[in-house]
Structure formats: C-alpha cells, structure tokens
C-alpha cells in the first residue's frame, strides 16, 4: 500500500512539474517541443500497454497516428464536421484498422506480430502516399482547423501554451486510463501473457482476446495522438507516419522503462528532445537509434525509471547504515 501511495505522489509531482513547465520556458520552440512530447506520451502509453505490459512489440503506432490524423482532418475538411467530433472519432476509426491488423496476427503466438504490424505500417504509408484523390499524396493536407471555432472561441487554441495545456489534459487522461487498465484484473492477465502465454491458456483464458484488446487500445491512443498532432500543426503528410516514427515509440518505452506508468512519460520527452541535441547526426539517425537500443537493453533493461529506482534504493541503503 505504501508503494502505491509513493507512486501516487510521484505521479502528482510529475503532473505538477508539467503544469508549471511553460512558465519556466521562455523559448517558444521549446514549448512547441513540449507539445510534441506530450502527444508522444499518449502514443508511448499505448505502445507500453502492448509492448511493455503484454510483451508484444508493435511497429505500427505511427501508422495508427496517421490513420487518426488523416481521419480527423478529412472528416473536418470534406464534411465540415466540428473539430471536437472529428478528434473523438479518430480513435474509433483507428480501432477498426487495428482490429483488422490484430485479429489474424494475434491469434498465433510469437514474433509474426511484430512483422505483421511493420508491414501494416508500410501499407498505410503507401496508401496515404498514393490515394492522392483523398489524401493529396506527398503534398499532404493543409488548413486543418484548430479546435475552439477559430479565433472567436472562448479559448484560443492557436496559442501554443493553450494547446500545451489542452494536450496535457489529454495525456493525463490517457495515462490515468492506462494505470486503471494495468492495475485491473484485465491488466494482471496482460502481464501474465508477457510472462507465460502457454500457462494463460491452460488457466482457461483466451489469451488472444486480451492481446487484441491491448493492441486495439494502444492503436486508439495512437490515433488520438495523431488527431491532436494534426490539429496542432494544421498540416500533415505521409512522411510523418513511417516505420521510423513507429520505432520512436518502441524506443520511448525501452528508454523510459517498459512496463511502468512513468517510463513512457520520460521516454516520450527523451525521444522528442534528444534528437534536437543530436541534430548534427541526423543522417546517422537509425545507426544511433540502434546503438541506443542495444546499449539501453544491456545497461538499463528496466529503462530510465528502473535505473532511477535502483539509484534511489542504493541511496536509501547507504543512509540506513
């Protein structure tokens, strides 16, 4: 019980830090990056649900972001539906696609899943690129409206800091939902699947249903994040939704700490802010990512969160002496 209370305090501290963050940032660009990082928190929480808790690595989250982003944009641009409605329908549209991709690949155990999701991401990219009548191809979609009915809305979402708080509310909600899921009976089954799927079957549970649930929820988070991104940038094109970005989600979970609630939050900020400092190495991006992945797996298998809690434990032991 003390453990959960301690965790609760940690979550509150992180939330408080994120609430005051904008007042400490004077550069607009860093506010911009923080908005992106919060959007990636939503993606990473979903990725963690399927990868960290259930043990199945999906390499399709950017594809799902694309579905959510194009979904909300097209519904708004083509049918004039209100922004709030299109944002909320984005995860539902994404869920349908995730069901189609997940059903066949999760009926079986093992590694097909990663490959199927990777292929699925490629297909999404190719479709977005070539279905030019609908998606405008490489040129992308422009003029995606902000929520709040333009400038006359009560709250001005065109303002970066305002959008920051909007996305912070969304990321907090998604994180709370994830915590609810993983601490529930259902979450225990997901963690059991990660440890020993054969035994889950022998215990009388249809593992594939639980895996599919985790995957669809993870895709819905990504779709939601994609929609938030589209309305934030007002512009999207297929290039933003490739396998490389899906790998960012994988990396965020591993770096931050897989199978924890705080891990994806830290990981998301890491994958958004680190490349800014590694900009000189842009052409080696994949090489560096590979290197980070390998090093992280060897030296901090439980991510930054695991490293921090080990360090804390060591400090406590010393003080106890």
């Amino acid at each position, binding site marked *: 019980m003390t453990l959960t209370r301690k965790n609760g305090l940690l979550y509150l501290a992180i939330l408080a830090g994120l609430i005051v963050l904008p007042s400490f940032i004077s550069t607009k660009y860093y506010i911009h990056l923080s908005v992106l990082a919060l959007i990636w928190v939503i993606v990473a929480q979903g990725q963690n649900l399927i990868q960290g808790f259930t043990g199945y690595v999906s390499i399709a989250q950017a594809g799902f972001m694309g579905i959510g982003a194009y979904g909300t944009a097209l519904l708004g641009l083509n049918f004039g539906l209100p922004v709030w409605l299109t944002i909320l329908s984005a995860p539902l549209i994404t869920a349908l696609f995730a069901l189609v991709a997940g059903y066949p690949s999760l009926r079986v155990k093992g590694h097909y899943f990663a490959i199927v999701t990777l292929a699925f991401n490629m297909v999404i990219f190719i479709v977005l690129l070539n279905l030019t009548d609908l998606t405008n191809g490489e040129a992308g979609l422009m003029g995606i409206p902000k929520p709040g009915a333009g400038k006359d809305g009560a709250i001005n979402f065109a303002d970066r800091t305002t959008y920051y708080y909007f996305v912070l509310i969304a990321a907090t909600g998604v994180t709370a939902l994830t915590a*609810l899921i993983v601490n529930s*009976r259902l979450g225990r*089954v997901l*963690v059991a699947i990660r*440890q020993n799927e*054969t*035994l889950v079957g*022998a*215990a009388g*549970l249809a593992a594939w249903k639980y895996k599919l649930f985790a995957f669809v929820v993870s895709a819905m988070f990504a779709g939601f994040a994609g929609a938030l991104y589209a309305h934030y940038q007002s512009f999207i094109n297929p290039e933003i939704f490739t396998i490389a970005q899906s790998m960012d989600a994988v990396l965020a979970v591993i770096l931050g700490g897989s199978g924890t609630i705080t891990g994806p939050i830290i990981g998301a900020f890491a994958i958004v802010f680190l490349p800014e400092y590694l900009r000189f190495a842009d052409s080696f991006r994949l090489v560096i990512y590979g290197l980070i992945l390998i090093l992280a797996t060897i030296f901090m298998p439980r991510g930054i969160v695991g490293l921090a809690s080990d360090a804390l434990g060591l400090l406590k032991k010393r003080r106890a002496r």
Partner: protein
Amino acid sequence: MDLALDVRDLGKTFGGVKALDGLSFGIARGEVMGLIGPNGSGKSTTVNTLAGVFPATSGEIRLRGKPVHHLPEYARVQAGLTRTFQTASVFPEFTVREQVLLGAEPARTRRGVWSMLRSGARMEPELRGRLDEILQLTGLADLADTRIEEVSAADQRFLMIATALAADPAVILLDEPAAGMVSHERDRLSHLILALGARGHAVLVIEHHMSLIMKVCDRITVLNFGEKIAEGTPREIRSDQRVVDAYLGEAA
C-alpha cells in the same frame, strides 16, 4: 456409472506419425487413474489432446457427460478440465497467490466484462477463502506472498497443481508431477494426490515413479506406441506380462 471424464477411441497423428491410436478410458468422480508407459508412448500427447492444446484427429471426449472435443482449450477449462505441465510452467514475476488467483480467473470472468476493470488485487472474500484453502492443501501457505522465481523447483510443481485446482475442476490431469522431486517431496505429493481424490476430483496422473503410482492410483492405464495395452488395479498391472515386457521390466 457416472464418469467425470470419458474418453472414447481417441486418436492423434502428427504428420503421419500415430502418437495416439484408439485410446479409450474413463475416470469416475474421486478416482485416481494412473497413465504409464515408455518414453514417447503418447502420455503427454494424451494430456495435450484432452486439454485441447491441439485438436484430436479422431474420437470423443466427454466431461461429466458433455462432449468437449470440439471446444478450444480455454473453454475446456471453463467446462471443468485443467492440467499441469511436464516441465514446470509458472509466472516467475508473480507471487504464489497471484498465480493461483489467475487460475481462478475463468470462473470469475463470467461475472461480466466490466468487472475485469476492477482492481486486480481485490478478491471476493469467499474466493480468498477458497484460495487460502488450496494454498494450505498444496503446502504453499507460507509461500503465498513470495515471488515465484524465488520458490524451489518442487514448490513450483506444487504451485502448478494449486493453479489447476483454482478453477475448481471436475478433472485434473497431472503430467509427471514428481519429476525432479526427492523422496520426501514425493511423499508430500502422494498425500496431495490422494487428497485430490478425496475432494472429489477425477485425477489422471502420469508418472515414471512406480512406487508413487502404485500407492496413489485406484486404476492404471498403460500405453505403448500410442495404444492402450492394459488397464487395471495396481496389483493387476504389476503382474500383467505385456506390461512387464513393454515397460515395467525396464523401469523396475
């Protein structure tokens, strides 16, 4: 007679290899049936086919009179048939109690989908009581809150049985439960198996330890090359010439 498990003419082929051929037997409520035979004779295949890990090639399986051979694995558990594995199979990061609780999950899911979002640590008081009784019975009460990876290999085997019991099965299949156990652990196991029978479960136990089998079984079925070559009381089996030739000669 009222059979808890009724197996008729069960067959299983793996790409042309007949692992099981026309196997029939029945186990009554409260009865302990032994299943013995040389390595590769089809004992584990029997368990896996009964449990629904893979479909039978032919034959019928009835649980308390109801056919289950068309059902997937998880549905057979819900219908009242559970099993353990020949090699220890556990959730290493869970505590002993958490794993046993998961074994009870199928009985709970029928309370509705939304209840799956309730806290994973909370249990109904009567369920907690039932799990405590199972932990007591299997000798794991003191280890209830220990992480499984820190539990001895023998206790992990008892834990598999506890997990299989949590679903409150009519039939429980034990695949070489004594593997790797030393003598006093085997004694503890014999007591448990006898207690399972006394609790009214129908038990199928596969073993190579003949003294254990002879002690706990009401009847024994003998397999050789996927076919049943004998069935009878321990005394009858010990003196059956075909069984001695095929199996006991080498094991004894």
